[in-house]
């Protein structure tokens, strides 16, 4: 009898659910455990209900919506027709091309710039707090205000950027109004608006790198670039890889910046993104089935990418 009692007193953290209590003593222990956990379950149930109604249920509903359509006032089974519709829509491929372009450019700018800024900030001994505030300030601005600011900067007629280019004798640009520069212009604005948060996270990670390692590297004759390559990046790899994953997921879902800067599609559809297309299907064409189908495609691709990324990261760690 002693072994089960010991097991009850010291349950291993990953033990399977306890078997049904057999003796009165077992039952008392079970009731005690239940009472002990009741409060925790009480707290948990609120969160579970919230997630169920506002997160999981809409996801399941979206899955069904992707296979439904409205016909003469009734919801009918649509089979794969919503998917056929989106794959046949010329805007579908254009939106994916644009989204991938945005993601690529955002990685070049939005991933590298905050890291470099964090590196620079980390070197300052004085006024670091003020500099952090300055870098973070754009994040505190409402996105609409930031976008309006950039809309003014980019205006080809009276915008600030063209005035600056003109003042230094460079040719003026069409910025948001040219298919060549529209997406780059959106990325620049988005990077400025969002880099503050990433910079602070990188800065926190950099401050955790032991100073001795830099000293050791210096003794070995390493310059700045080699110190970054051999000390900083390996030491912050976990944060960097997590931020990379989050950034790719976030940029693939870009919506606000192009929507406000170019009115959505931009010149010849150059800034139409996947999430904008979903919005258009749902709220402009009232085609919820196709919106759900495209949302599902995006979800599957992002989930597959995240899974592959995590697996590769684990493999490289091992």
């Amino acid at each position, binding site marked *: 009898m002693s072994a089960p009692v010991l097991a009850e007193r010291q349950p291993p953290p990953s033990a399977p659910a306890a078997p049904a209590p057999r003796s009165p003593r077992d039952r008392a222990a079970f009731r005690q455990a239940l009472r002990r956990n009741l409060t925790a379950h009480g707290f948990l149930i609120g969160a579970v209900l919230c997630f169920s109604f506002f997160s999981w249920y809409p996801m399941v509903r979206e899955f069904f919506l992707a296979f439904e359509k409205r016909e003469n*006032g009734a919801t009918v089974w649509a089979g794969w027709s919503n998917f056929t519709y989106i794959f046949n829509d010329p805007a579908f491929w254009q939106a994916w091309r644009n989204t991938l372009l945005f993601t690529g450019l955002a990685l070049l700018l939005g991933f590298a710039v905050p890291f470099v800024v964090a590196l620079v900030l980390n070197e300052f001994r004085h006024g670091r707090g003020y500099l952090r505030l300055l870098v973070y300030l754009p994040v505190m601005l409402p996105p609409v205000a930031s976008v309006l600011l950039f809309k003014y900067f980019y205006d080809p007629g009276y915008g600030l950027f063209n005035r600056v280019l003109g003042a230094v004798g460079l040719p003026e640009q069409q910025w948001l109004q040219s298919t060549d520069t529209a997406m780059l212009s959106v990325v620049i604005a988005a990077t400025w608006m969002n880099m503050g948060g990433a910079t602070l996270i990188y800065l926190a990670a950099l401050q955790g790198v032991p100073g001795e390692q830099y000293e050791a590297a210096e003794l070995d004759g390493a310059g700045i670039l080699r110190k970054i390559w051999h000390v900083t990046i390996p030491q912050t790899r976990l944060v960097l890889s997590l931020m990379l994953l989050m950034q790719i997921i976030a940029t693939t879902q870009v919506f606000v910046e192009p929507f406000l800067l170019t009115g959505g599609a931009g010149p010849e559809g150059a800034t139409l993104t996947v999430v904008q297309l979903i919005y258009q299907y749902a709220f402009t064409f009232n085609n919820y089935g196709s919106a759900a189908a495209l949302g599902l495609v995006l979800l599957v691709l992002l989930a597959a990418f995240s899974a592959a990324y995590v697996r590769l990261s684990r493999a490289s760690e091992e």
Partner: protein
Amino acid sequence: MTRSGMIRPRDRRRHAAALASALALAALAACGTSSSDDGGGGGGDAVDAAEAAAPLDPAAKVSLTIDCMPPATEKAELRQWKEDVEKFNEKYPNVTIEGKQTDPCLEPPRFTAMLKAKSQPDVFYTYFTDLQQVLDNDGATDISAYVNDRTVPALKDMDPGVLDVLKRDGKLYGLPCSNYTMGLLINRPLFEKAGLDPDRPPATWPEVRAAAKRIAALGDGTAGFGEYSAGNNGGWHYTATTYGLGGDIVDERGTGAAFDDARGRRILDNLKAMRWDDDSMGRTQLLKWGDLQKQMAAGKLGMFLAAPDDITYMVQNLGAKYEDYGMAPIPGQRATLFGGNDYMIKKGISSDKVKAAVAWITFKFLTPGKGQFDWARTKADGLPVGLPQPAFWTGATKSADDKARAASSTMPVANFRAFTAHPVQGRHEPPKAQEIYKVLDTVMSAVLTNEDADTGKLLDTARRQVDQILANQ
């Protein structure tokens, strides 16, 4: 740790629990799937025609919820609404009107969500273009049997084209409260400054181009003509321009695009010439509704295609003055795009409620001399009178309304003479309008942002895309 098999026993339990949760949620989702036959009892569609045509029973106590009551910030309009409710209750003391303040009256995402949730008020506000969406969501009552010369006395003098927009398969689903046709809005001070006669506005596209060039020559960032090319508004205006020149966007059978022709290329070539050769359209493009109004109210734009209520928007929101603007018919004048708004009645409500709703809409919006057509009161309340909108009356009712409107006008109605003296036949939007506008937006944005745009190629691509949209109907 080693793994024996694909899934560990503990994981199996987890997966089973996850599957059970998913199935439970799926069942919940299936329960949430709406169907069409939630009639709600008594609603209009199944009601006896003779019974429906009869007036509202004074003994029946009815309570109605109604969309688009003016917000508290619009004091005069709200006061008028309350006065009208009181007067209506003198005739129908058995009807309780519960107005719902919504500002603006309709926002597409909110409207769509409202229809999906079936949470629209008993009497709800829509745009003419929303009929298909409302029917897809089984949201409106067929009111054909309720609307006749007894319940809507001025029915015989209502433009049948306006009522047709609210019909599907011969059934009527709404009653209009306002309508508009698109024309050419001009900035009179800029016309005068450029040596042009604002009382003889351009009537053709070559005249528009010539006038735009002269206005743009004033300099200081002034544009002669403005056009949309974002937010589907570019496609919308391309459609209006095509109608003005006698063309069409979709063929008669509604199965193919009809804009890829010499006329379509002429429209784009003209815009391209104004934008790039004449430099008379300003350098800022990708504009959508609201942008051109700002430019014009700031005195920086000479002309753009608009409806009369664009002037009201500029006066009420951008500090403009009515006397600075004039309207002309759309260039070409073969036809023009029309639109408007209306009230529909929620499906599933009782027959008495439908009758009360028709009585209220008629009293407030469709009775000459009363409600919104009480121009003397509108003037006394300091609100504008004189815009050529709404314009859905014909015959004797139109003559009487025009007279009453002119007698109480608060703006120089002569500025709209070119527009009102030459009414252009209104045409409604093509099928799949927003999807087609999206395609045509690309064409418009290309012409206005790319100096080397190939108009023939653009139209060819757009035609193929629109053909595909129509094939998927």
